[in-house]
């Protein structure tokens, strides 16, 4: 019993355990909390989609998993990493050299606008060799693996390795970077808007490749984006960020078809989708909150159609109305949201 209640949202074999993690910046206007006491577990081998609008703290969450929060930001709380074999690692309690070893070898990353992270004066192949060298790996063995990765990503290995970054298109660069991030066979891949600058067709193609590669290698993937439809068909579970904290976490299917938080439902209703009747789409009223001045109580209350005095006063805990502990939302009126805020995609199905 003890073990079951320990993990969040029914995760049984966590690779990450994040507890009470916050990121704060001191600003002239006051302390800015860009990540607010987050508790979440990431399951080994899953694809976790993290969705949030600009300024919801999603990039901070990505950086926190690598203990790479940019200065002068301060990361507090606890982030435990459980490698496949070996002792658990307290990520926030490592020396600089220890954390550097974990990054890339154990936990790898592809960040937004990552195409510019290639050095323009080096060929793509040089980047691969340098990475192998820096981590003390066998170069020829490593380059063989690089060839394999590149061709799985539909790239001509010889041509790409011999090219300079500017000679490749955006989509090719992004795939080469994906191969580079997997070169040292990490257990976890953290991706922050990895496809945002690309065409939709290329984004979808890369998503398919990520899915295949992840499955084949038992990778754990944390995929962070503002684009809910993009992860809809990729993730096993989805966490929705609003105002620097998770407001809903659950299996992807349940989040899309039966979401419990008013914000998630509003987000779904405001997303352009070929199948949704155009007349039904609704923008979300109001603005996202300022990190220095997050509303008291439930942070979504100024925009929420269901909010009342209770929401203004009290911050709701995570709860579930139907006993499903794997799908929970932070809302006082969780049992009313489905009735009060219908999902327009669902209506299509009912009326058909």
């Amino acid at each position: 019993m003890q073990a079951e209640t320990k993990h969040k949202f029914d995760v049984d074999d966590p690779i990450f355990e994040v507890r009470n993690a916050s990121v704060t910046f001191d600003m002239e206007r006051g302390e800015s909390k860009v990540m607010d006491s987050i508790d979440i577990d990431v399951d080994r081998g899953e694809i976790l989609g993290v969705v949030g609008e600009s300024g919801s703290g999603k990039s901070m969450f990505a950086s926190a998993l690598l203990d790479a929060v940019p200065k002068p930001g301060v990361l507090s709380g606890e982030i435990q990493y459980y490698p496949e074999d070996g002792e658990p690692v307290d990520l926030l309690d490592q020396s600089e050299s220890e954390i550097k070893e974990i990054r890339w070898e154990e936990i790898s990353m592809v960040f937004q606008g990552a195409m510019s992270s290639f050095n323009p004066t080096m060929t793509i192949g040089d980047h691969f060799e340098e990475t192998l060298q820096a981590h003390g790996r066998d170069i020829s063995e490593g380059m063989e693996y690089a060839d394999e990765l590149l061709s799985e990503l539909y790239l001509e290995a010889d041509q790409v390795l011999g090219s300079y970054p500017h000679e490749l298109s955006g989509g090719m660069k992004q795939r080469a970077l994906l191969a580079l991030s997997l070169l040292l066979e990490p257990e976890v891949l953290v991706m922050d808007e990895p496809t945002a600058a690309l065409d939709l067709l290329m984004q979808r193609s890369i998503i398919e490749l990520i899915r295949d590669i992840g499955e084949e290698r038992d990778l754990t993937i944390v995929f962070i984006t503002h684009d809910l439809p993009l992860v809809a068909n990729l993730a096993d579970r989805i966490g929705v960020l609003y105002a620097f904290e998770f407001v809903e976490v659950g299996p992807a299917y349940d989040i899309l078809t039966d979401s419990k938080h008013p914000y998630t439902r509003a987000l779904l209703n405001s997303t352009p989708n070929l199948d949704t009747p155009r007349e039904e789409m609704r923008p979300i009223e109001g603005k996202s909150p300022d990190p220095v001045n997050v509303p008291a109580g439930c942070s979504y209350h100024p925009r929420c159609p269901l909010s009342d005095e209770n929401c203004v006063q009290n911050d709701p805990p995570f709860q579930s109305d139907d006993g499903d502990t794997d799908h929970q939302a932070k809302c006082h009126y969780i049992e009313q949201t489905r009735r009060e805020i219908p999902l327009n995609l669902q209506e299509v199905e009912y009326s058909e």
Partner: protein
Amino acid sequence: MSETDHVVSLDDVRVHFEPESGLFARDDDVVKAVDGISLDIGENDVVALVGESGCGKSTLGKTAIGTQRPTEGSVSYRGQDIWEARDGDSDAEIPYETIRRSLQIIHQDPGASLNPNKTVLHSLMVPLKLTEPDLNTFDRRDRVHEMLSRVGMEPPKDYANRYPHQLSGGERQRVALIRALLMNPDLIFADEAVSALDVSLRIDMMDLMLELQDQFNTSFLFVSHNLSNASYITGKADGRIGVMYLGELVELGPIDEVIQNPQHPYTKALMWAAPNLNPDAAEDTTGTPLRKIDVPDPRNPPAGCRFHTRCPNAREACKQTPPETDVDADGDHKVACYRAIDDHEYWDSPELSD
């Protein structure tokens, strides 16, 4: 419909970019960004162009509003050839100045198109000085305030005195939209105008564009790589959608017809890429519908149907250029693909595989 009824009419337009001439320049380095496209845009029309980066959609848009000179073919505004007027043809019925004012653009990056050193008020007074020189400063300021509150930037006095960096991405895009509208244009070319915005803000911005279209009698040429966005804005306005691939228009038609009855395999690929929020509908759509992920080099596009190197349905016959074919009886919906011709030899030719 006579030619003068169209706001803008493109006739067999080609835009070829040649490399800087020099010792090492070769003829085959010419990029055919737009290669033989005809398109008419009427009053209060909404047309969306979709396609991948490098397909020439932005170049075509710039050509339509007269900021890019076509290498071949003609572009006319209400029957007047834009480039003849520009080159000082004394017979021009409509002066070039008028044409330029009537055709406006909203850029993809709203931040970069506003002067960072000028307030919103200042940036928006400039077009008013041109279009309504009789107004005094106070009247102009009132007009700007009125427009700001019309696009939901309340209180307008507060917003008017801000600098671009004090606005969010959505607010900057609204300011760019107002600036274009204050020129009283007949056509606004919106180049990926909502792509940089958060997903949840996009329909808000598109609704605003359509609402203002009604009030200002403007046509929109909307360019996007995202079919969901393009179908939203054209669908609400009963507009048309054009699908571009490597400089050519491969399918054109009323939005609902194209979405419900897509003919070109490339249109189908773009529809596959438009993510579906319905997990039940999406299950059978895994696996890319393309044979190759990357777009071929535009300097050296494949012969015949340019899509044949990536097309899942390509056959030997596709190495010839397919003609433009009517899909429906009234000729609104056109496609350039042999698959639209029932009795073509395509159906008997061997499939391409590589």
